């Protein structure tokens, strides 16, 4: 099972600040997804990255996939309280059908 390491584990910032969270593995990702989970809810897909060096933007969120496809980052510009949640990266499991292996997540708190 591919291990996905996320950092930082916790992040508490004020509204308007920028932040970056990371997802790394010692082996190559075939592809990678980022999910956000809000309290009391299930994860919701933000983006899928497939190609090394790929950059995708979703409003104030910018996702990068490393050239070697071993790492990915999520950058949030001018964070807002609505960005609060658990950010999870995930990659396909090699031995569980179409299931996902998840990292342990970055818990983000944005205070007004």
């Amino acid at each position, binding site marked *: 099972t591919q291990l996905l390491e996320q950092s930082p584990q916790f992040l508490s910032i004020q509204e308007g600040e920028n932040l970056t969270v990371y997802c790394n593995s010692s082996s190559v990702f075939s592809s990678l997804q980022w999910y956000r989970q809000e309290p009391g809810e299930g994860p919701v897909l933000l983006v*899928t990255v497939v190609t090394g060096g790929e950059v995708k933007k979703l409003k104030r969120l910018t996702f990068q996939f490393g050239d070697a496809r071993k790492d990915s980052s999520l950058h949030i510009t001018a964070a807002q309280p609505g960005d609060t949640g658990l950010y999870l990266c995930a990659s396909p499991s090699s031995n569980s059908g179409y299931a996902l292996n998840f990292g342990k997540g970055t818990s983000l708190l944005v205070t007004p």
Partner: protein
Amino acid sequence: DTAVSQTPKYLVTQMGNDKSIKCEQNLGHDTMYWYKQDSKKFLKIMFSYNNKELIINETVPNRFSPKSPDKAHLNLHINSLELGDSAVYFCASSQGVSMDIQYFGAGTRLSVL
């Protein structure tokens, strides 16, 4: 309409009891899953079920058994509940293509006393 719905939302029970969690998806997806999220928020696959083929994560105790009466439903039955089973259980579904979007239910918080 909720795409993936789970019931109950909360489940509190005693050790040794048997309980079930129900899951239904109205997306017409071919594949459904059960994930377990522990107290540290680590989300781990338990089962995936695609067109009557069940793929089991080897670390899941055999006290856990998924049951799929039809393509839209995947229920989770747990026998002889233990304290360590306390967690949030998520059902999810996808079309079944690699890295397709997975849609998650809101979770069932199980507390074993």
